[in-house]
């Protein structure tokens, strides 16, 4: 069922790009706020507001932004854990937003999630054996013996001893628990994994181990990751491309090194400048933003960032900047991208 027209179009559009695995088009997700008895209007939290981007096969797409910027919601919309209110999501060029429940169940096997808190995402009353074989219970009719063999291989793959299958989650360390979560996620040989702050709850040394494990598995199994994190160094290390989110919108998408080298959106610049670098000689000037992130229930008109932007002009207050490709593989949603700034930054 190949859509010829679309494939052709894609070829013309991006001759050198690898094939697209996930394509998000104008995705919107609003959450209803509780309405007071006397208020007339229903208010919405605009968690994800008209976001479009693509994830290529085999890459790691990092998603960064402040808390409350809608990163996690976007991730959940992509894998169908939240239903998008508007917009389309394509997985391998199939529109999954148009599928009914039963059809979606088949696609769901291909998309798995690793959560932030490994102790919260594992049922405390199940042993590792049961936890890892749960995907098989849901999707296959394997015998007990087959499942045990599978669990043993999976445990080995994520670097845990087979004897751990008899443990309960509370008997494992944080890193070991996250390895169990990873084993669960890769059990069904998915193509796409959403890692939602997957290493944020772990301490730094363990973070590195888990990230390297994720990288190894990516190579071995040809996985594609959507990696959500607020630790910028982690994102820089693992991601091929990075998207920056602010108040429910993508403000910049770029290849990792280019973004970290010279961010084009003033928000990206501010966000990246707060990132501590492990080199005392490198003194960067921090861009300190004024004020708090505005409420996503009532975002500013025009460019959403204009209330805090150091270079905002009149036009920013009225006209919404679109996310446009201004360089090869770089998309920015800003009226005044920091094109000149790049030289000062790189000394």
């Amino acid at each position: 069922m190949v859509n010829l027209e679309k494939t052709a179009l894609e070829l013309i559009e991006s001759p050198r790009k690898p094939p697209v695995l996930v394509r998000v088009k104008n995705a919107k997700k609003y959450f209803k706020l509780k309405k007071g008895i006397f208020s007339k209007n229903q208010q919405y939290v605009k968690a994800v507001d008209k976001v479009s981007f693509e994830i290529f096969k085999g890459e790691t797409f990092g998603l960064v932004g402040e808390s409350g910027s809608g990163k996690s919601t976007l991730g959940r919309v992509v894998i169908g854990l939240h239903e998008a209110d508007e917009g389309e999501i394509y997985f391998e060029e199939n529109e999954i937003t148009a599928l009914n429940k039963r059809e979606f169940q088949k696609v769901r096997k291909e998309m798995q999630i690793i959560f932030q808190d490994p102790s919260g995402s594992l049922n405390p009353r199940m042993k590792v054996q049961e936890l890892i074989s749960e995907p098989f219970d849901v999707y296959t009719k394997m015998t007990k013996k087959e499942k045990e063999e599978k669990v043993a291989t999976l445990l080995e793959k994520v670097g845990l001893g087979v004897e751990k299958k008899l443990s309960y989650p509370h008997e494992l360390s944080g890193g070991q628990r996250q390895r169990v979560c990873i084993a669960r996620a890769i059990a069904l040989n998915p193509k796409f994994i959403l890692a939602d702050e997957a290493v944020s709850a772990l301490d730094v040394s363990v973070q590195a181990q888990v990230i390297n494990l994720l990288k190894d598995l990516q190579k071995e199994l040809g996985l594609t990751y959507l990696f959500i994190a607020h630790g910028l160094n982690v994102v820089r290390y693992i991601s091929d491309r990075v998207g920056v989110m602010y108040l429910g919108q993508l403000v910049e998408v770029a290849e990792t090194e280019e973004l970290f080298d010279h961010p084009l959106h003033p928000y990206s610049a501010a966000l990246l400048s707060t990132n501590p670098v492990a080199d005392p000689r490198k003194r960067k000037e921090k861009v300190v933003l004024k004020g708090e992130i505005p409420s996503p229930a009532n975002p500013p008109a025009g460019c959403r960032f204009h209330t805090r932007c150091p270079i905002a002009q009149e036009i920013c207050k009225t006209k919404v900047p679109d996310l446009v490709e201004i360089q090869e593989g770089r998309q920015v949603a800003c009226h005044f991208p920091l094109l000149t700034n790049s030289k000062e930054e790189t000394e």
Partner: protein
Amino acid sequence: MSNPAANNTDLNQVRVSANIKKSTAWTRLKKNKAAFSALIFLVLIHLLIFVGPFIWTVNPDATNPAGMLQGITASHPLGTDDLGRDVLARMMKGGQITLLVGFGAMFFTVLIGGLVGMLAGYYGKWVDIILMRFTEAMLSIPNFFLALVALTVFGKSPLMVVLVIAFTSWMEIARVVYGETLKWKESEFVEASEALGSSSVRTLYKHIFPQIIPSIIVSSTLGIAWAILTESAISYLGLGIQPPTATWGNMLQNAQQYIWTTPMLGVLPGVAIALVVLAYNFLGDGLRDALDPKHRGGK
């Protein structure tokens, strides 16, 4: 946060730590003197009631007009009642019925309350609205009088008594289970299971239900006490299980005419009911603390 056993790689050590963890609820219960003595008392009284009749084989329903209202004698250690029946045998037989009614009513109470609470909590929306409003409506009716009316209408067989008690007392458990389900529904492992593609029935059964079991155990222990008390009260009013089948409740009713002449007839079933109910309440409170250490204030 992290368990001291977390870094053990040795299989045996992991096993040992699992055993330690398993025994903590039990050790906490053992430390609670009231609950633990209640448990011992309940074990003994259940042994007496259910094993006793095999040793003391006097027929509890055999009347003896020549030996009415006797005091303590060798052949009747607890005396006889107004029809010359052996009180010890009747206490054991009556205890069996009373406790079985208690267990049976508790079983149906937990079944109805658990199902209503879990379905309402998990599915939310209109299921929640219908079930929980119904629960609240049931709570607003004085359930003892509802039980009396139902028994008058539907008859007084032991099974009917069980069902009537269950249908008038499931609401408390439904509310407890409802609250717990709401809490666990938001947990990440439930979301993880949904992300995996589990069906809602599977999620409910495999992930939410096991978390609620401790609350259900506590509620059902307290529920037994309530059911015994209700059964006794209903039988005392003459609307419960009918003579000659003995229960502690109808023995009590029977005894009230002889309260001045043979007080033992009333005191024995009365004290038995009070002690068993008290013991179940102590045990229930103890279990609540033992199964959920957070209830004790600190962690």
